[in-house]
């Protein structure tokens, strides 16, 4: 039993006394929210903090020297480099500069992000427990490395519900970069042990943005309307006879399905977007299924009040050929990410929309494979990585946290993934310790038994 079914039942005749005792628990938001919704730009594969955000000028002179043991501290490595005989320091080949009034350091690979430097809070001191993609993504998505718990979007849709009766509360879109792509899993946006209806709904490019959305060929919306009327008439008969509230719910869900058949194609149809939109988001934006097109859709979903919008962009796993492949990744993502912030701001939506840009972990300062003057690879690195946040509840133009001279260990203000979760919930007006679901006798939370709101990031 969860709060939402209870609330829906309350309309269907649950006794007043019962309702009273059931609602004694918390309702959300717990306090005035800064953000009404989240856009989570998940950069899947582990973007290199060393080549994008975490400027380490001192490394240049150390190029090719062995990573000191005092830095590595015997920390575990992945099975891919654990047998490597040396760990040569690989400084970034990319130039860094300060941007905006805030003077935020960013790499030359992010010229568009540079233009929104004063809107974003860069966090350079995030760390995770996981060292491989699947557990790391699962950890970022659910607060736990092993699959089985609800994803963050499911938690939020469970806690805060939907603001739009014609669209799902949690929408996911996946795009494919040009770099080395690792597999994702549907459970990344699943609901774990809370009811399936809180799962993310994946929007796909193509004829059926949502699975089974389109009527079969030859069957018009008019015919579908008639079909639904007839179906409802029959289901009403059943409801009158059996009085099971589930029947009333089913009738209502068919109506929402019908509305989705209109609202989703209207949403995903970019043909009425003005030229200026495509100029802003870049040339890829005209191609459905690209990260850029998905960023436009994210804005359109935000406009329509969808609670949790999540993009997954694959291809950030640069074990080798990093200088070449990372550039390709950034070419596809830098402009659209920045455009989204700018676009939301222009429309007055940025203040009420929390935007998060993050991967699942960082990458090693030492080269995986051979280090040359122009080429290197980087292995997975859980001990520090960088992300940025912007919009509702977030103080723009700041850089939080520091790593050591090798971007290997955190030097100050460590931030756990749980802290990011707590902070995201906080921006939504949700006290992270109160958003719970009882399963197997335990009151589970997104933040498990951890999580501190990172106050320094708040506006």
């Amino acid at each position, binding site marked *: 039993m969860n709060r939402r079914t209870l609330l829906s039942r309350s309309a269907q005749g649950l006794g007043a006394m019962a309702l009273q005792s059931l609602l004694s628990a918390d309702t959300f938001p717990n306090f005035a929210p800064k953000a009404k919704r989240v856009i989570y730009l998940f950069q899947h594969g582990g973007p290199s903090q060393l080549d994008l955000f975490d400027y380490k000028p001192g490394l240049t002179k150390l190029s090719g020297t062995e990573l000191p043991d005092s830095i590595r501290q015997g920390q575990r490595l992945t099975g891919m480099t654990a047998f490597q005989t040396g760990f040569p320091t690989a400084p970034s080949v990319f130039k860094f500069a300060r941007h905006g009034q805030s003077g935020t350091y960013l790499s030359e690979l992010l010229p568009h992000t540079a233009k929104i430097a004063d809107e974003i809070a860069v966090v350079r001191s995030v760390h995770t427990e996981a060292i491989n993609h699947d557990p790391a993504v699962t950890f970022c998505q659910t607060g736990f490395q092993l*699959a089985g718990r609800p994803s963050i979007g499911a938690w939020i849709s469970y806690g805060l519900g939907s603001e739009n009766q014609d669209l799902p509360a949690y929408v996911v879109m996946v795009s494919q970069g040009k770099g080395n792509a690792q597999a994702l899993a549907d459970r990344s946006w699943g609901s774990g042990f809370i009811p399936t209806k809180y799962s993310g709904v994946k929007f796909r490019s193509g004829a059926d943005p949502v699975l*089974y959305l389109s009527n079969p060929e030859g069957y018009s919306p008019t015919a579908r309307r*008639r079909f639904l009327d007839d179906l409802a008439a029959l289901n009403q008969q059943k409801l009158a006879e059996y009085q099971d509230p*589930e029947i009333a719910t089913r009738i209502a869900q068919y109506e929402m399905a019908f509305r989705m058949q209109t609202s989703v194609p209207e949403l995903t149809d970019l043909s009425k977007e003005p030229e200026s939109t495509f100029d802003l988001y870049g040339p890829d934006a005209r191609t459905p299924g690209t990260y850029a097109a998905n960023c436009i859709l994210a804005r359109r979903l935000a406009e329509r009040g969808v609670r949790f919008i999540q993009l997954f962009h694959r291809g950030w796993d640069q074990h080798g050929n990093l200088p070449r492949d990372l550039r390709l990744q950034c070419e596809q993502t830098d402009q659209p990410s920045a455009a989204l912030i700018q676009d939301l701001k222009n429309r007055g939506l940025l203040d009420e929309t929390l935007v998060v840009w993050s991967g699942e972990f960082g990458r090693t300062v030492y080269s995986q494979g051979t280090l040359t003057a122009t080429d290197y690879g980087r292995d997975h690195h859980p001990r520090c990585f960088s992300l940025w946040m912007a919009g509702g509840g977030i103080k723009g133009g700041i850089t939080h946290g520091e790593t050591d001279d090798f971007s290997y260990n955190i030097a100050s203000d460590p931030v756990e993934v749980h802290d990011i979760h707590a902070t995201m919930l906080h921006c939504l007006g949700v006290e992270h310790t109160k958003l719970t679901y009882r399963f197997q006798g*335990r009151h589970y939370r997104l933040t498990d038994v951890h999580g501190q709101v990172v106050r320094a990031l708040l506006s």
Partner: protein
Amino acid sequence: MILALLAISAFAQKVEFNRDVRPILSDKCFACHGPDAKAKGIPLRLDVEAEAKAERRGRFAIKPGSPDESEVLRRVRAAQPARRMPPAITGHTVTDAEVATLRQWISEGAAWQAHWAFLAPKPQAPPTTESKWPRNPIDNFVLSRLDRAKLTPSLPAKPETLLRRASFDLTGLPPTPAEIDIFFKDKSPQAYEHALDRLLASPRYGERMAARWLDAARYADTNGYQFDGERQMWRWRDWVIEAFNRNQRFDQFALEQIAGDLLPQATLNQRIATGFNRNHRGNTEDGIVPEEYAVEYVVDRVETTSTVFLGLTLGCARCHNHKYDPLTQKEFYQFFSYFNNVPENGRAMKYGNSPPYAAAPTVAQQAELAKREAAIAAERAALRRDEAKITAAQGETASARWVPTVGLDFAWKPGEPTANPQAGAFDIRDHFTIATRIKAANGAIVTKMTDRPQGRGYGVYVKDGRVHVHITSNYVNDAIRVDTERQLEPGREYAVTVTYDGRVAAAGVTVYVDGEPQAVKVSQDTLYRPFVNAGAIFKEPLRMGAGGGPANKFAGEIHEARVYSRVLPPDQVAALAGVTRPEFARGAYLETAQTAQGNTWRKLQQLIDQQERFARTFPTVMVMADGAPKQTHILLRGAYDKPGEAVTPGLPAILPPMPAGLPNNRLGLARWITSPENPLLARVTVNRFWQMYFGTGLVKTVEDFGTQGDWPSHPELLDWLALEFVRSGWDVKALQKLILSSATYRQSSKTTPELLERDPDNRLLARGPRVRLAPEMIRDAALHSSGLLHESLGGPSVKPYQPAGLWKEISMQDMDYVESTGQDLYRRGLYTFWKRTIAPPMMVNFDAANHESCTVRESRTNTPLQALNLMNDVTFLEAGRLLGERMLKEGGANPLAYGFRLVTGRRPSPVESRVLKDSLQYHLDYFSSDRAAPYLNQGLHKRDPAWKPQELAAYAAIGNLLLNLDEAVTKE
């Protein structure tokens, strides 16, 4: 929550500790003042009576009879936030109603009870009643409870409704019109019983039962985690279906799954049964630390075993003592150690099964094998009869060298091309032999690999004077490498032979020099994936004297080389190497003799080779096995790399001890779990069956019978059923029949506003169950009523329709979903291929268990995606079309009523008939031919040309409409 409401508010009576008080203390207090209190430095425990009632500096946490002197009550009501319990940081508060309950309980003397589920079930006499309503003792318990709540049972369901309910519950399929007619015609008082017997005897029964068991056992056809390659566990699924169908005793069913491999003279089926605890995920990712996942697999076994058979959330004690139940972290690792002796690697195979696994031929394959063995025996007998002739004849050629010809893939001699693109096309699971004669020097002798150092593929070398063999997918961490201890003398001639038996381990490699097996040093033994991903071709040629780059060019001479696609036995290796022994003379003679005996001998060799190859096509199944005992340690905070105190296998102290005489291993554990003294197995099992039929268990938390679990709605009934189950010899079918025969089950599921208000979840059972069908049943029922369902039992998983691209979008790029063809498109849902990371979308839409980890609680939601699924998925459009055809073909005077009955099991009411008739007319008018043609073009099943497209399309639309009815997807 609802239950507490019913328990206290609905009928005021004496407070009972287990029912009313323990849930409050457990939920609000035990996390700190519970079993783990001491570890956290908290002196007060409220889960132990003596401590809770003890005097502490003149005060009492709980003082029986004196609520005002009981600190617990003061603290939950404290005005000062700093003094109030539970502390604000926990997010918990004690409600007014809960305070009242605590107060009343303390006033009434604060009587304590041990946690009910850990005590043996008590024999219960069914309450007596004047009522004629009860049909069996279940009803006496239910009625007595209803009486207390001042509720009355509902009327019996209509016969057709009841038959449909029972059909879904026992077979997962709706009844056919013919079955309904038989039921109506059977006027005997046992008509319903006959129907139950028919359903229980149906092969579909085992499939229905297996579907939920697969959820609990986290069955899947892929490994999960990131790469999520295919594995093969369907022979375990076959075993489950078969076990239910032959009504195996449940204790034996449980025993064999936990420890069938350890039974004396374990049969193949008993070993297959242990696949239960190998169904967990396996991580194949390149970068993992294998030890980390080896721990996860064992934890998964502990969690699954304890949830399924004990209803305990033992996993909560992995990192610390259990917060609610008296289970310590040490006990968790003692239990863990029963499952920790599997000779396994934390990194799983990229494709296929990971050791240990067993060849598991199907019944048909076993029969075929027996036939082949008989044929081999016959040829052997024929040779024996001619033994004298052979001995006489072979003398003449005794000095010849025996060169086996069976399975010869390639032979080479100097002067021939040194690269062959076709030969030696083996991968890591193939068997092969490479036999050479060389003049020794360093370098590659025979290879099939990318031509660079540390390349991918396999090769036989001389390296530093030693024979070196590698089988490599990734030199760094995905390879086998062995070297002989013996060094060859440069310039001397040797026969170097290598055999490999496809076992994906260094132990599968044997190196011979001059026919003698060699001791080897294994420098790498971590091979996980084939040279190429599934489906692709490994293009490297077989090279003589080269491979692995210019530096590895062979510096000696190769005098001959032979490649066989089988493992030559030692005698043939020796003979081929030129070793002469008297017993080889016979082979040397027969291999080439142009006589009847020679023919027979060669035929025999062929038959043996074919039989071995046939045996390699057998499906395999991962099984449990105990290797050398591993020392288990407590893992601090559950982390694989933080071992603490060493522990030995043992059982939680709250449960009865293991009976004397049992071995303290997994088999002993299994015998203990299935012994009648275990208070949990029977209760947990009957409760899960109850959930299958009523939608909710008597204990709603079917996964948790600990103190955080819900109090049973009918504790006496639960105990009675549990004891009855054990008394019957754990007879599952008898239990089903008992429950389904009860008046409780046979009630109508119609409800009323009053009942909805009093008991929205129907926990008191004043009405019959009305529950949406399980996901696979929704599709099965649509296929069944449209006549598409292909009913065949068991076998590999199939791939029915699925929207294109779902796998490709997010999986590794080489994986795509290839739909099955023909009848395999229409098999029952439990045979649908389950890819863990991208599960079948229809199943997911309808709340299927996740198959990532053990799931025993059934869940039902009601969403717009379900509506879209039923309206627009080709599965339900094609079924609608076939249903339309059936209406036209078989429906006689009233096709609509016939179709309605196929789906709902009843005839439509006049109002329903009118709606359907009008809808049909609308669709007849709607479907012009240019609309009908594409509308009918759904699915691969051929359209019946007997009907005009416009008419058929209209009926097809009605067919789909019927499949969308609430009633179509609901058991009522």
